[in-house]
């Protein structure tokens, strides 16, 4: 089984070869395609996130990797071997379920050791490894407890221990933190990252929470309606989204529509805007400039040297404690969102409703998008 990785025959694990490869995988339920001709590589020792709105196919993809769904078309390779014909109980892949799926009629020890008992592992060794896992997830001595005696957070850790004890090639996590409150979720996110670094196992997490994906993942695959929108590191996705959809899905952005002019400029309703580069767009093309709220500066007076500046009035303020989000109504009727940290110790926002303000941003601050 997963121990010793005997299941993957053929060429020895090659670091240059991806650990998991989806090759043009399609999954149809009736006439609806949950996943459409999707190709994706996931590497070794990687914390990988599948992110997207509900119905985008991320859970289906995960379940195909686990073996609970079979692709209608395409192959899934693990260490170079096609695992589609392999039954789920034979795959060196383990999953942590969203509902934890702990066996109510077994104890904590019974649950965690369950996977080892399916193979030929000696009783003594099972006991040792269970104790090891309990220590790892910080539940020492919990072995004899029954599942209904545990809190939600404790159950989650038992589920994690159960899915890691067989040292799988890939650990799949299906929205593992959805049931936890915000504080616990934050702590657990860091614990998961630490665990992944320690074990070196590839983790694949499915989540709809973009903040979570950004925090934990080395790379994120953003999906929408069965297709991959962008696959990159969190920083890359945030700073260099490849489409308006991705820019809008991750974080906030103001979209400014315009025509490409000479010298990396864009002609928009607010005038000429200097950008850091228009990329593949040619003069005359319609493009959109995506601006993140924290990249825009706000002042009462017109800035002297910044090239991109517009005036407007404060129409709404959202005070968040650490930051304030301002909605600024511009001269052409459009709205721009600006985020300022509340650095001043006095508290409260430096600007008030209906204040006239000047917004400005450096040319490299925005991303020019062609779609």
């Amino acid at each position: 089984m997963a121990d010793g990785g005997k299941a993957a025959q053929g060429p020895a694990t090659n670091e240059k070869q991806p650990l998991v490869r989806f090759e043009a995988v399609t999954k149809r339920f009736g006439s609806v395609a949950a996943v459409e001709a999707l190709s994706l590589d996931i590497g070794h020792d990687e914390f990988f996130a599948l992110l997207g709105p509900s119905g985008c196919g991320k859970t289906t993809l995960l379940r195909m990797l686990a073996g609970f769904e079979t692709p209608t078309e395409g192959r899934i390779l693990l260490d170079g071997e096609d695992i589609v014909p392999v039954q789920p109980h034979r795959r060196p892949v383990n999953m942590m379920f969203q509902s934890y799926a702990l066996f109510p009629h077994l104890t904590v020890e019974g649950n965690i050791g369950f996977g080892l008992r399916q193979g030929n592992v000696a009783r003594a060794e099972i006991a040792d490894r269970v104790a090891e896992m309990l220590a790892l997830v910080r539940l020492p001595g919990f072995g004899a407890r029954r599942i209904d005696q545990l809190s939600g957070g404790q159950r989650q850790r038992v589920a994690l221990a159960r899915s890691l004890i067989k040292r799988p090639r890939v650990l799949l996590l299906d929205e593992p933190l959805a049931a936890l409150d915000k504080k616990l979720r934050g702590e657990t996110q860091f614990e998961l990252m630490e665990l992944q670094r320690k074990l070196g196992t590839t983790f694949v997490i499915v989540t709809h929470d973009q903040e979570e994906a950004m925090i934990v993942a080395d790379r994120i695959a953003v999906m929408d309606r069965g297709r991959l929108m962008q696959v990159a590191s969190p920083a890359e996705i945030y700073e260099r989204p490849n489409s308006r959809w991705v820019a809008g899905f991750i974080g906030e952005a103001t979209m400014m529509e315009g025509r490409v002019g000479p010298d990396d400029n864009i002609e928009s309703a607010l005038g000429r805007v200097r950008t850091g580069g228009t990329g593949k767009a040619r003069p005359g093309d319609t493009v959109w400039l995506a601006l993140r709220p924290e990249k825009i500066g706000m002042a009462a007076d017109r800035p002297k040297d910044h090239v991109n500046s517009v005036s407007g009035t404060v129409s709404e303020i959202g005070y968040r404690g650490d930051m304030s989000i301002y909605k600024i109504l511009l001269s052409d009727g459009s709205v721009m969102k600006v985020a300022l940290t509340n650095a001043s110790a006095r508290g409260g926002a430096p600007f008030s409703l209906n204040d006239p303000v000047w917004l400005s941003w450096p040319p490299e601050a925005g991303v020019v998008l062609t779609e």
Partner: protein
Amino acid sequence: MQENLEKRDWGGRAVLLLPYLWLVVFFLTPFIIVLKISLSQTAMAQPPYLPVFDLSAGWAGLKEFAAQLSLDSFQLLFTDLIYLLSYLKSVQVAAISTIILLLIGYPFAYGIARAPRGWQPLLVMAVVLPFWTSFLIRVYAWINILQRDGLLNDVLMRLYIVDTPVSWLSSDTAIYIGMVYSYLPFMVLPLYAALEQMDETLLEAAADLGCSRWKTFWLVVVPLSLPGAAAGALLCFIPIVGEFVIPDLLGGSETLMIGQTLWNEFFANRDWPVASAIAVTLLALLLVPMLFYERLQQRSLGGGP
């Protein structure tokens, strides 16, 4: 998961095979035999009918077999008034009993559904418990009460409601009492299940929009509980038509219900073909309600074809 089962179809087939075979042999085949015997003629023989299906006689035997089939038994059923009256009485008793059961069972089930959460399982258990004791015993218990020197007369006389003992047994009234008594759990439980699942916010919405409790009951609760009421009604009506024990123990000897008629034809008259014909006709009569009930079941269980 579906696919894993399909991938190794033999696994699924094996699960299906045992009960399927059992039912084909012990359920389906008997019906075919009943049909066949209903088309046979009575004979003073063992078994008491002709022709006997004998494969060893070969093709000629089969031809002779077919030739000897007759519709005599069915003719008898349709011409002799006794049988017609028996069917009519059975349907009448079943219909009236079902109506009484609805009238009594609905408030009962509704009361349980409105009881405090903690009490409900206990109340349901209390309704089910008599059902788990012997059916025969419970009917028999009514004999204790309804007989001439029984409890009911005793109480009535002491209360000066009647002067002399009334003959309650051997009457249609006794049959109705017995039917309603025995089938009450079958009516209450499906009704309770439907009422209990009702979304309370619907009632709150009705009240919010101006409905009194009474109106809410008729405009919201009753329509929504209709499937449960239909299931309960069918679960009672269909078996009552063919009931034997209750009319036999509690009823009189004027017109018999069809279950008694079948029994008598079989055991007393040793007329197997007629008894089989009665069974076939009864089944045909009940086919539509049974299919209806099946449809209701599938819809509620959600696991239908």
